[in-house]
């Protein structure tokens, strides 16, 4: 178990972090936009940065507790820290870099650990090289080996792959998953890349402006964002505001109306009253295409809507489609603005013939709708609530 609670007053903002995550053989991703305190959080866990107040517990071991005046210095924390720029010691070759943390242990132990790591990370042929003569991917593998050789109780990775090109990045991500399985080591990694966070970790801690906005299993974060900000960071651009017009028996559903659209959504985790104004969302790839004119006997649960594709973006293996709905969620002010973003695989795109036909009946399955919370800000009527686009998972 990893428990991290601390506060630190910085020049620009206050870092106020609080999360708990199971770590047994799993990875936790600190995810969020750049410059929001993720790297500093990692440094606090590593003991390289002292917070004003707080408590850090890793595997039942208290590393920091300001209320009890406990501060375990970095050198005694047994953390494997891999900083963003790898910082291999430039005056030592690969071998001596890796051995740095174990140079006082018995020779045979050093040699056997070194041999294992060189093999696992494919570094056998590079032992004598200086860091300046290594590629980015090689440097990253050496940095990992150097951290792992000390047998750390937790591995801390700061943006481990951002400096690498996409081919090497994919390869190294696989390697890290391997390491995760092989060493059964809790991992905390910092990343601003959603794909990376999702691929490498089970648990995601979303940090925004120095605060944890959501800490949950990765699917919860992806499909049930706790705030609008989380929804935006994770690429859910279909965020709408709607008024509760009906609550189903035994809180089985709520019916929401926003502008001219009406949808059924699961009853949220918090109590709502009729007339309440809520934010809700659906991930682009959860919207379904159905053949227009068919299944007229469709049920309410499908939230069927008619619309027209006004823009398409091809990604190779998938497409992002932008739809204008006949009964939109909000007043559109621009001729080019869309109501709904839909992600489909290239296979589906070709099979159902989206290239030829632009008028479609789409379904927003009830279970896939997620109510984020009460709508903040001004009333929705007469407002263009469309969220400006940000990059994300498609």
């Amino acid at each position: 178990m990893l428990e991290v609670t601390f506060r630190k007053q910085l020049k620009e903002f206050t870092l106020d972090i609080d999360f708990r995550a199971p770590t047994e053989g799993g990875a936790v991703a600190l995810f969020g936009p750049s410059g929001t305190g993720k790297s500093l959080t990692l440094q606090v866990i590593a003991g390289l940065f002292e917070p004003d107040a707080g408590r850090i517990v890793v595997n039942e071991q208290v590393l920091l507790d300001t209320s009890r005046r406990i501060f375990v210095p970095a050198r005694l924390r047994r953390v494997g820290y891999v900083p963003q720029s790898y910082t291999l010691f430039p005056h030592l070759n690969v071998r001596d870099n890796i051995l740095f943390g174990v140079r006082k242990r018995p020779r045979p132990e050093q040699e056997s650990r070194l041999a294992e790591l060189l093999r696992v990370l494919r570094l056998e042929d590079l032992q004598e090289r200086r860091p300046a003569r290594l590629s980015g991917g090689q440097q990253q593998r050496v940095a990992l080996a150097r951290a792992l050789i000390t047998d750390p109780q937790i591995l801390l990775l700061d943006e481990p792959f951002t400096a690498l090109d996409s081919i090497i990045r994919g390869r190294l991500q696989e390697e890290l998953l391997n390491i995760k399985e092989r060493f059964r080591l809790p991992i905390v990694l910092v990343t601003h890349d959603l794909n990376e966070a999702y691929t490498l970790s089970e648990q995601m801690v979303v940090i925004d402006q120095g605060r944890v906005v959501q800490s949950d299993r990765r699917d919860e974060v992806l499909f049930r964002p706790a705030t609008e900000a989380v929804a935006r960071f994770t690429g859910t651009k279909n965020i709408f505001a709607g008024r509760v017009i009906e609550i189903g028996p035994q809180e089985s559903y709520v019916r929401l109306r926003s502008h001219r659209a009406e949808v059924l959504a699961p009853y949220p985790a918090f109590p709502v009253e009729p007339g309440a104004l809520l934010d809700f969302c659906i991930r682009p790839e959860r919207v379904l295409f159905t053949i227009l004119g068919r299944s007229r006997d469709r049920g309410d649960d499908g939230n069927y809507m008619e619309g027209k594709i006004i823009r398409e973006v091809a990604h190779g293996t998938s497409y992002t489609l932008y739809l204008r709905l006949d009964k939109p969620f909000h007043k559109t002010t621009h001729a080019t603005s869309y109501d709904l973003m839909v992600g489909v695989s290239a296979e589906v795109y070709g099979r159902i013939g989206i290239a030829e036909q632009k008028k479609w009946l789409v379904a927003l399955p009830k279970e896939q709708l997620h109510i984020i919370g009460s709508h903040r800000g001004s009333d929705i009527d007469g407002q263009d609530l469309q969220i400006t686009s940000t990059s994300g998972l498609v």
Partner: protein
Amino acid sequence: MAFTEIELESPTRRAKRARTYRPFNRSVVWLLLGGAPLLLFLVVPLVALLVRSVAGGSLFEFLSAPAVVSALQLSLVTTLVTLVLAVVFGTPLAYLLARYDFRGKSLLDTLIDLPMVLPPAVAGVALLITLGRRGWIGSWLEEQFGLTIGFSTVAVILAQLFVAAPFYIKSAKAGFEATDPGFERVATTLGTGSLETFWRITVPLALPSLLSGMVMTWARALGEFGATIMFAGSFEGKTRTMPLAIYGALEGNGGLDQAVTLSVILVVASFIVLFLVKWLARSRLN
């Protein structure tokens, strides 16, 4: 390997490639003509020294003169002690200035640099009124312990330290500043204490700067004259270092030949020192 990894170009190679020269052309002639007088002025006296020392046969003859030998010995001993003191006390100071920010830092920084630009005579006066027989600390030392610093070998070392140590501090500070503290932090997480991290990571990485600082400090100490003659006087075997001996020889004891001999030694030593510093600076790039 299943995928290709691009070998990064080493900084050495990049630096070599970036150093491009213009081809010679007509303007070179004009530049040379314009610069020649100064060039000659700088080089000819040194050549004259060398020629005189060899041609007059004086170099080897006077090398064994007692006055020359004692000046040489004294200079070697005092400059080495100065160097050790500068490194021992200057290193923590340089690291402090490089890594920490505090109020009055720029003031302290300027104060440390000051002896480098002060006339050595000023340094001599300052040392006299603090450590001289009637100085603040000097008089107390004499009363309490019967110690006299002024006009002793210790005074020679202190005069050298005062004017030369800033060269080491400045260079070491620059070296520490250029060393990414990220290296130290990683070493810490790998279970290394701060003193050992300093020794195993910081010092090797800042070594070219540390060495060039040491060389400069030593060279400055070797050439020290003004502060020494004021604070330590010129007593053969005790405080008469090489520069003082040169002056003394011209004044009458030994004559021009001894002065030439000592001067040549200093020229050669200084040349080697400068050459070393430049070589170190280049190796830092690589």
